[in-house]
Every structure is written in structure tokens, then in C-alpha cells.
């Protein structure tokens, strides 16, 4: 199977059950060599379970896992050439930073000196050489995070697993580390599998994202795909903010679907496989794809009245009531205020969007 | 003990589940052979015939239990009427242990409460102060107590010296001395579980009660006490159970009149005068009583945990 070997990780029909509870419901996915791959989902969705199955900390109830073509699901963790950055870092508290980083190399049979000199290089890479002799408790959260990274990378694993490694850091540090991680992944050329519940983090860093919920994969694709073309309600709601509207599909023509919003309002958007004429489904429109005007501008203009403006720093969020129809949330960036209009509450106006901004969801 | 029992049931991880059999084997073997098997053997011995110079003859006999419960007259040929001698000794033991438990509770509860309401940084030191004496040899503590309380001991000397007494107060060889000795032996067992319970107690509940016009003492009785009851019960059990079977305090502080179960049992195995089957039977009766108390306690704790 030549296509198996080109994949860093291939998960085939993996099922995980704890007694009566099914944590993973038959997941299959392929992760390419040299890819930054993210498992994204809320807590309890099975993403960490899947990661731990790849690392070897959880048995696979059914199915198989391949690492560059070799079946690994029955190997103990210490025989799998993958390393993990743990959520709480799990730095050995009784060892120095240098010994922590050297640990994996020593276990792989390197002499103490060899292991330490390589560990020293790794610490240089993450710019922590001056802390080599310290204990983990003497380092800040961000520094500990980089030690954990150095420790996991030191034995040159074929795949690096990262279990929400940034969740304990504050916002600023998290942003900096996101970039650092991305750079490190490019430099080392190692396949990263990253687990997070933070959709923004996932969008920023990943080549591809698997969105998971309730033990099932909801959507697999690039960040842009997932954000702009959510396949279902869960993905649309989980990734970013959106207007979720109940619509009925009135007709489909040339790949365009005409949707009824209630109150006589209509919108046209791209037709989607699995949504036929007469079906009642949900539609997603991102608030930042909407703008307001006093006259209809585009083909897709809806008449409404301003209910409330909320100032949220970088943006202004406006809530618009359509006559006899649903509510819309419109987001206007403060930097855009020259081009876009803000109305006072009570004012009548039109909500406009480009064709294709609205998306029908399968379920 | 109580805290240990609770944590023994908590969730575990399974890193070493393949080796758990081999890891537990030494404990099973040692405790099975040298604690569990001996108790079984003791049960068997209580149904054997006594050998007059200590030990047993391997013949089935109910004589030990008969001697314990039945009075068969001077020549041992009358029908069974209840024999009170040993039941009285057991009763005295229960009574003494109960009195010691109440004494421990009266002193131990305020102490535990006081420690638990110290600033958090000071608490370990107070707990440390309470536990140090427990680490000191029980025999030495009991002997020290006896030395202090003697008729010509430092306590009486001091009381006479300051003119509070004319003649020494006889404390040694009284019931009270035994209770004091038992209190002294097991006090930390009362303080520690109550301390743990009060420390976990959410004082916002007391504030809510005070806000709703409850006085301090009403708050203590109606709000705090029900919340820390499991700790209080645990403390009482931990003092009562070892007190009942104790040997040193009654032997050294109580004298011949204040004989308790421990001394009764010990006597059966001393030199050639003893009666092993009878000693084994008395031990079995004591063990049964203790296990029943612990069982009731465990069920109550389980119930309390479910409610919490």
C-alpha cells in the first residue's frame, strides 16, 4: 500500500469504548508527512483520546493505527517513535532541565555525555541554555513549555504529539508561542499533531484541521475551508461567531438555492449536496460578512431596524431586527468605519452581503 | 485510619495493572499468613480443650465459651445460669472506654476546632504539637502519667505546696486514672479526624446562619455539628476501639480492682496458670464486638458520603 507509507499517521476505523461508553465512534483519517495537523473540538469530544491512542497510552478497542506504514497500535509507548508534549508539561520535578531533555536520549541508549550534549543543543534551540542546571519549578510557565517541547523533540521523533500545550499560558504568551511552534514545525520538518479546544489557535497554526464532536469527526479540511464552508451546524457554531438561521429551501437553480427566512425575506446562496427543495435546514452567515446601508446595495439585501449597538473594542456589534423575521448580528470593524455605516438604534436600514456569504448546513 | 479507609477506595490509574498481582503478592502472603491465618487459628483454639500448663489439647470443646457465659456452681455440675464475672469485666471495659471517649471528645473537639480555625500557615505546627506525644512510646507515656499522678508525685506535691490540698489526692488505681490514661493514649485519634472535617467545613454556612439571626452557639449546634458529624464519629470510634482492648493503661494505672478485657486476656497466656482456649474465646468475643462497631461505622460513613 504505497499511499499508506506516504502518510505519517493513518488511523483506520478506530473505535474506543470504556465499558458502555463509546469515546470514539469509528474514526478514520490520514495525516500527511510534514504536516501541522490539528484535532479541534470541545472537551469530551474524543480528541485527546485519539491523541493518547497514537501515543500508546490508551488501547485501541477496534481498528488500526499506522506510523509511516508500520502498524503500531499494539506497541507499548516506549517502542513508538512518537513523542508527546503534555498539557501540564509533566516535566520531571526531581531532575534538572538538562536531565529532563536528555532523558529520552538516554532511554534510547545514548551515553550520558552524548545525551547531555544533544540536550544542550536542544536547549539552545529554544533559547533556554542558561537554565540548564535549574529545576522545573524554578521556571516560568512559558519556559517550562519550551523545555517540554525541547524534551519531546530531542530524540527526533517521527511525529510530535501536542496535547493542549498552550492552554496554561496567558493570552499574550500563547500568541507568541503559536508562532514559535509553527516556525519550529517548519524548521524541523517533523509532523505535528496538535490537540486544542481553541478554534482561533487551530486556525492560526494548522495546515489541516479535524473538527471533532461527541466521538465523531465533523469536518476535515484547511483552516479557510472550515471557517468559510462549515459543513454542519456544529462546525459553523463551534468555529467563530455566526448567525444561525432556520430556513426553508424554496427552489434550486444552476447551483443556487433560494431560501426563505420567514417574514417574506429571501436569500440566495450556493446549493449544497444533501439539501433539496422543500427541506428545512440551517443557514450560517458570519457577522463580519454583513454590512449596513440606507438603501439596498447588493442583490442580497434585507430590510431591518437597528435594535442595539455594542462597542467591543476592535469592533462594533450591531443587532438588527428584520421585519417579522429573524435577528441578525452584524460586526463592523472600527478600522472600517470610514467605508461602512453605523446607524442609531431604531433606524431603518438594509443588511447586505455578497453572494456566497451565506451557507447552507447539512444538519 | 478513617481518612485512609476513604482514600483506599478512590480512583486509581492503571500504569502498572499488568504487574499488580506480583506487586500485591508479598503483602498478601505476609498479612495472610501472619495476621489473617492467626486469627483463624485463634478461632479454632477457642474451641479446643485446655492444657493445664499452657497451650491446648486438640479435642473439640465448648468449655471456654461455657466458662465465659455459664455459672455452673462450685463443682461445675449445675445447670447453666448466667455467669456475671466476665460479662462485668467486658461491661467495665466498655464503660471505661466510653468515659475515656467522652473525655477525649470534650477536650478534643474544642482543640480540633481551635486548630482548624487558625491561619492556614500555623495549622501544621499545631497539628504537629498534638501528634508529637503519640509518637512517644505508649509505655513511657503511661509510666510518666503514673509518676505524675502518684500520691507522692509532683502533681500532689504541687497541690499541697500551694495549699490547695492538705493530704494527697488518690488518683492512681482509680477508674478516673484509667480514663485519664486512655484519654492520654488516644487523644490525637480524636483530634485529627475532627480537625480534618472542620478544616473542610465551609464557614460561609455559619455566616449565613448568623445573618439569619442564629446565635453563635445555635450555629455551632445546628449548622457546624451536623456538617462535621462524620469526623466526630470517626474520632470517637478511633478512641473507643483501642481503649476497649487496651492493656497498659488499666494495668499500670488501674490496679487489680479496675481489671479490663486486656488484662483478662493477658492473664490467660502468662506462665503456666493460663487457660489458652478461654483467652482465645475472650479475644474472639472482643474482636467480634470491635468488628461489629467498625461495620456499623463503615456503613454510616458510606451513607454519609453518598448524601454529600
Amino acid at each position, binding site marked *: 500500500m504505497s499511499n499508506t507509507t506516504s502518510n505519517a499517521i493513518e488511523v483506520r476505523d478506530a473505535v474506543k469504548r470504556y465499558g458502555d461508553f463509546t469515546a470514539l465512534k469509528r474514526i478514520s483519517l490520514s495525516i500527511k508527512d510534514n504536516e501541522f495537523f490539528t484535532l479541534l473540538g470541545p472537551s469530551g469530544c474524543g480528541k485527546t483520546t485519539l491523541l493518547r491512542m497514537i501515543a500508546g497510552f490508551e488501547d485501541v478497542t477496534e481498528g488500526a493505527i499506522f506510523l509511516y506504514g508500520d502498524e503500531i497500535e499494539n506497541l507499548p509507548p516506549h517502542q513508538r517513535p512518537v513523542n508527546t508534549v503534555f498539557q501540564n508539561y509533566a516535566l520531571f520535578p526531581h531532575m534538572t532541565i538538562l536531565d529532563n531533555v536528555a532523558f529520552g536520549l538516554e532511554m534510547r541508549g545514548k551515553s550520558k555525555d552524548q545525551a547531555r550534549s544533544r540536550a544542550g543543543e536542544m536547549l539552545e534551540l529554544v533559547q533556554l541554555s542558561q537554565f540548564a542546571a535549574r529545576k522545573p519549578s524554578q521556571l516560568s510557565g512559558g519556559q517550562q513549555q519550551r523545555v517540554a517541547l525541547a524534551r519531546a523533540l530531542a530524540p527526533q521523533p517521527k511525529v510530535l504529539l501536542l496535547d493542549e500545550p498552550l492552554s496554561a499560558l496567558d493570552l499574550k504568551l500563547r500568541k507568541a508561542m503559536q508562532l514559535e511552534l509553527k516556525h519550529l514545525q517548519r524548521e524541523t520538518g517533523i509532523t505535528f499533531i496538535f490537540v486544542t479546544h481553541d478554534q482561533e489557535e487551530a486556525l492560526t497554526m494548522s495546515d489541516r484541521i479535524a473538527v471533532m464532536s461527541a466521538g465523531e469527526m465533523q469536518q476535515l479540511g484547511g483552516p479557510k475551508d472550515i471557517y468559510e464552508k462549515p459543513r454542519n451546524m456544529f462546525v459553523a457554531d463551534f468555529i467563530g461567531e455566526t448567525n444561525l438561521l432556520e430556513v426553508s429551501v424554496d427552489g434550486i437553480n444552476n447551483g443556487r438555492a433560494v431560501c426563505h427566512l420567514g417574514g417574506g425575506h429571501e436569500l440566495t446562496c450556493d446549493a449544497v449536496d444533501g439539501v433539496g427543495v422543500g427541506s428545512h435546514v440551517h443557514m450560517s452567515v458570519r457577522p463580519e460578512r454583513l454590512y449596513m446601508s440606507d438603501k439596498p446595495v447588493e442583490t442580497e439585501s434585507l430590510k431591518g431596524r437597528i435594535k442595539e449597538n455594542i462597542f467591543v473594542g476592535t469592533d462594533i456589534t450591531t443587532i438588527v431586527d428584520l421585519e417579522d423575521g429573524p435577528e441578525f448580528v452584524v460586526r463592523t470593524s472600527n478600522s472600517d468605519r470610514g467605508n461602512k455605516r453605523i446607524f442609531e438604534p431604531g433606524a431603518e436600514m438594509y443588511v447586505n452581503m455578497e453572494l456566497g456569504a451565506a451557507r447552507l448546513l447539512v444538519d | 485510619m478513617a481518612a485512609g479507609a476513604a482514600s*483506599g477506595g478512590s480512583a*486509581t490509574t492503571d500504569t502498572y495493572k499488568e504487574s499488580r498481582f506480583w506487586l500485591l503478592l508479598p503483602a498478601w502472603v505476609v498479612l495472610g499468613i501472619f495476621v489473617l491465618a492467626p486469627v483463624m487459628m485463634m478461632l479454632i483454639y477457642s474451641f479446643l480443650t485446655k492444657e493445664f500448663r499452657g497451650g491446648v489439647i486438640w479435642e473439640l470443646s465448648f468449655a471456654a465459651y461455657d466458662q465465659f457465659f455459664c455459672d455452673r456452681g462450685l463443682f461445675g455440675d449445675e445447670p447453666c445460669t448466667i455467669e456475671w464475672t466476665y460479662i462485668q469485666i467486658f461491661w467495665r471495659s466498655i464503660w471505661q472506654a466510653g468515659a475515656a471517649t467522652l473525655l477525649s471528645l470534650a477536650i478534643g473537639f474544642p482543640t480540633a476546632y481551635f486548630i482548624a480555625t487558625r491561619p492556614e500557615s500555623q495549622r501544621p505546627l499545631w497539628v504537629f*504539637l498534638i501528634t508529637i506525644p503519640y509518637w512517644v512510646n505508649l509505655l513511657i507515656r503511661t*509510666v510518666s502519667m503514673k509518676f505524675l499522678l502518684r500520691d507522692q508525685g509532683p502533681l500532689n506535691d504541687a497541690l499541697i505546696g500551694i495549699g490547695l490540698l492538705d493530704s494527697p489526692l488518690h488518683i492512681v488505681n482509680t477508674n478516673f486514672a484509667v480514663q485519664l490514661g486512655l484519654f492520654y493514649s488516644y487523644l490525637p485519634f480524636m483530634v485529627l479526624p475532627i480537625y480534618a472535617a472542620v478544616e473542610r467545613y465551609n464557614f460561609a454556612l455559619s455566616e449565613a446562619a448568623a445573618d439569619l439571626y442564629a446565635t453563635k452557639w445555635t450555629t455551632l449546634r445546628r449548622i457546624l455539628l451536623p456538617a462535621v458529624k462524620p469526623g466526630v464519629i470517626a474520632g470517637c470510634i478511633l478512641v473507643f476501639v483501642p481503649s476497649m482492648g487496651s492493656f497498659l493503661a488499666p494495668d499500670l494505672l488501674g490496679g487489680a480492682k479496675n481489671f479490663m478485657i486486656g488484662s483478662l486476656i493477658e492473664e490467660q497466656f502468662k506462665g503456666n496458670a493460663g487457660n489458652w482456649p478461654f483467652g482465645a474465646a475472650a479475644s474472639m468475643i472482643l474482636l467480634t464486638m470491635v468488628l461489629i462497631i467498625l461495620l456499623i461505622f463503615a456503613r454510616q460513613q458510606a451513607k454519609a458520603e453518598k448524601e454529600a
Partner: protein
Amino acid sequence: MATAKYDIKSYSGFRAITLLCLVVLYAPLVIVTIYSFNSSASITTWEGISLKWYADVFTGPESEKFKLAARNSFVIAITAATVSTSIAVFAATAMVRGGKFKLRTVSFGLISLPLMVPEIVTAVATLIFFNSIGFDRGIMTILIAHIAFCIPFAYLPISARMQGIEDSYEQAAMDLYATKRQAFTKILLPLMMPGIISGFLLAFIVSLDDFIITNFVKGAGVETLPTAIFGAVKQGIKPNIMAISTMLLGISVIMVTISYFVSKTDNTK
């Protein structure tokens, strides 16, 4: 601070009771310590400070008896504490890191059995057991009884400690190519050390202090410090007993102090 603060937490009298409690706990020990330095041969009169009763313990007429008893006590306590601590470390690993299994509750019951059975009953049972299998009483019987009796005392601090160690440490070790055995010896064992030291010290003190079980299984002529002291006290409290008691008291206080500071060091942070 003109007005008294209404403190919902404080009850008048509780502080006084606590202080009374400490006085009751410490007075006998302090008094005995003071009188051990009494130069008088009578315990009732105070004749000034001297170390003569300490000298008497080491060189007096009874010194040979007490030295032998002390040697027995320490050999037994060190051996029993070492063996029971090792058994307890393995047992705790199985109980805390062995997952759920049917015999877990039974095992925990068995481990805590010596704490539930009254000591005098354990003593009787052990004596009967050795008698029934025809095992001669002596140092060996004391040692075996102590090992069994000390297991729960060593087990409780060790298992409590182990429950406080997250399993991600040993998982990280195995992820970094350590076998389970290496993860145990290189990671788990060092992290458990404070618990192991506490368990060892507790087992050591429990063995060193034990009188009742030892008295039953020791056999004729073999003495440990507690049985020797008990025998001597039966003839009346003498000043040399107070000197020995004070020394034992000192050892206990040193042990408990070490244990206190060890338990305060948290090497997982």
C-alpha cells in the same frame, strides 16, 4: 480597636481548652524528663541536677540487660521497618496504579486488618499461630509479627503520597522510551520518596514502641526495650527508667521532626 470584633469562627474558651489539652499531653513527659536529671536515688525528692542516672543506664548493674534489650529493639525496628516499607511500596503501586480490579477492596481490607483488630487480639492470635505450627518463640517471631503489624503504618503515607503524583510523569517517561520498570525506578520512586521516608519512620517508631505483641511472642529471656522497661516498672518506677524513657522520648521527637519536615517538602512542585 475600641470595639471587640464579632468573629463568627471563634468561641470563647476553646483556646483555653486547647492549651489545657497541650498541658495534659506534655506535662507527664516534661516532668519525667526533669526528674531523669535528679541526683537523688529516691524519685520523690529533688536533690539537684546530675547525669548520674544516665551514667547508670550505660554502666550500672542493669546496664547489660538494657543494652541487650536496646540492641534487640533497634535491630528489629530497622529490619521490620525496611521490610514492611518495601512490601508497602509494592502494594501501594498495585493499589494506586493498578487500575480497578475485583480484589482491590479485599486487598485494602487485608492491608488495614492490623489497624482494625485490637492489638491484644493480634498478639494472642500471633502467639497461638506460632505455637500451633511449633515455631519457637524468640527474636525471629518478634520480627515476623512486627513486619506484618507495621505494613499498614508504612502503607498509608506511601499510598497517600502516590495518589498525589499525577500519572502524566510516568507517561512522559514511557513516551520518552523508558520501559515501565525504568519509569518506576527513575521517576515514580524518587517522587514518592517523602512518602516512603514518612512510612519508614512511622513503621520504625511503631516497631520500636510495641509492647503488647512483643510481650506475647518474645519467648523467655528475650527482651526489647519496652518489655524490659515494663518488667522494671512492675517493681516500681526508678530513676534509671526515667533516664531511658527520656532518651527514647528524644529519639521519637527526632523521628517525628524529620517526618514533619520531609512531609513538608513537596518534590513534585
